[in-house]
């Protein structure tokens, strides 16, 4: 999928034993895809470090509207070792939100719902306003 021209709009891989390598390939797909609007990777037992590449490339995607990462461990506030990752995640998320706000000015309205951004599970949802 990451190498070929796949024009899928909605991809859900829920509780499908996704590994870090797989998530990295999904991130590459997200980066290059001009069609993907919804991505659901919930319930895959992924850890904070696994998401680094995905969050790094999120800002390059212009089509994604919904990202569901619930029931993975993205932020572990209790673990001091994850503080750096937490900060990186927050920064990447802010970056993404900022870009989305820019997009709103361009005529596409986006709203951000951060109420799910808790310790566990985590769900980041971007929807059309």
């Amino acid at each position: 999928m990451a190498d070929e021209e796949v024009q899928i709009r909605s991809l859900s891989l829920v509780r499908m034993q996704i590994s870090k390598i797989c998530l990295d390939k999904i991130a590459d797909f997200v980066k290059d895809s001009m069609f993907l609007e919804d991505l659901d990777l919930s319930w895959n037992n992924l850890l904070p470090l696994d998401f680094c590449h995905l969050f790094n490339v999120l800002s390059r995607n212009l089509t994604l509207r919904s990202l569901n990462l619930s029931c993975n461990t993205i932020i572990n506030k209790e673990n001091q070792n994850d503080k750096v990752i937490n900060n990186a995640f927050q920064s990447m998320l802010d970056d993404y939100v900022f870009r989305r706000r820019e997009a709103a000015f361009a005529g596409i309205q986006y709203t951000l719902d951060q109420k799910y951004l808790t310790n566990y599970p985590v769900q980041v949802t971007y929807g059309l306003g």
Partner: protein
Amino acid sequence: MDCIRDDTLVKRAAKIVKQIKVYEIGQKSHEEYFCHTFRNDPNLLYHKVVDEAKEVILPLLNKIVDNKLILKDYTLDSGHLNGLASCLKNKTITIDAVLFDNCGIDDEELAILLEGLLALDGIEHFVYKNNVFLQEGLEAIKPLLLKPDPHNLQELRLVNCATHPYLMTEMI
């Protein structure tokens, strides 16, 4: 006297045999006529394939509503999926969305189903939950994902399937 009785019996037997032959020929030609007339009927094709597989005929085609086939907790065997795939390959039915949730579909059966779906022009949504997804399914789903616009797959949902992590990596 006995000779006459035997003669009569032989004539009667011959008459019965003749009648049976005529009946058999008539039945055969009727079947041929029936099969020829309804050769494009999906129900006949589905029934034929499932019957050949010696499995209980389930009203699978009746579950297609508005070009959507939604099956939840509906156990299927390979005969049923073969029958469905035959109908799909024959293009006698049209489906644009399928959902199979806990249908007891194994890897080989998934490959059969996907081959059928690949023959369709407009399959847009493929939702596959609580079944098996392994190597054969992976190989079969790849061409479906690569279908070009406007016949491309819009939505792929794989949920809680028995699989292996490397297969997901290979798919992506």
